[in-house]
């Protein structure tokens, strides 16, 4: 398989996975709908953990840790812009100190 063919195949798999639940499969109902509605928040926190620790082999550096802590501190304000700003300030501040 050529690299171009691989890219097209990867793109097709990716798009189909997106379209499956939105277009192709029947909408969730009853128990499944309740389950699906409860997934996003823990999924995003899980993705945050995954982005933070990676494959678990190495601990994140101090700047990344500071960014995550700063974001957690302002997260109760429920402002994405503020959370991102706090994270970047935490990252830069610890980078300047160390």
């Amino acid at each position, binding site marked *: *398989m050529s690299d*171009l063919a*691989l*890219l097209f*195949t*990867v*793109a097709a*798999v*990716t*798009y189909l*996975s*997106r*379209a*499956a*639940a*939105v*277009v192709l499969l029947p*909408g*969730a109902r009853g128990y499944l*709908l309740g*389950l*699906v*509605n*409860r*997934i*996003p*928040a*823990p*999924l*995003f*926190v*899980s*993705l*945050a*953990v*995954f*982005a933070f*620790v*990676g*494959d*678990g082999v190495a601990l*994140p550096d101090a*700047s*990344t840790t500071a*960014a*995550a802590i700063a*974001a*957690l501190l302002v*997260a*109760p*304000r429920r*402002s*994405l*812009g503020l*959370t*991102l*700003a706090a*994270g*970047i300030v935490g*990252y830069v501040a610890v980078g300047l100190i160390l």
Partner: protein
Amino acid sequence: MSSQPGPASLPTLAPIAMAIAVFGMVYGAAAQVLLGTWLTLISSVLIFSGTVQFTMAGLLAAGSGPLAVLWAVFVVNIRNFALGGAVRPHLTGRRLQRILVSWFLIDETVGLALAAPADTDRVLLRSGLIAYLAWVVGTAVGVAGGASVGLEGLASAVFPVLFIGLAALIVRTSSGLARAGVGALVTLVLLLVSPSLAGLAPIIGGVVAALPGGGGE
């Protein structure tokens, strides 16, 4: 009444676009070595998924074959079923519109869309367009040599922050907060105990926490 900007507003979308563009720059610089200039650009135009593209590039760099790449891509895409399932009840457009907006179904846009359940179609479309442009332009800048060494560190720090912010937008109840905590804990344990589960750990954590009783109620 809240004075905070809406999920589809420029103040909300601009920092997300910047984060995605930085990530795209890092991808462009890294993938160019493996795929060359044009295929790297084509990959971002066609695939539009940082997780998928970094996974693909990492496996190709390690010498993996096409089947291994496709299997890994399938695994990391499993979470799209959950994201799509969560956003679908809020979509009001016809089938053709849903075919279009599903192109823009990525973690960041779904997080924003779920924060505006009455305006999901518009938020998904608008944030998706901006995220797509940021990703492709970022890749082009990275391919052109615009990615510096410091960007990789910043990109790796921005995404945990971004996901924390998106989760905060969605969590509205104490049981939702408890579920988020359970999801984080399950994911952390999975990643530490079995690093080979990396692509699946977040979706397992999310689903386990969403099960009845997962929030402690």
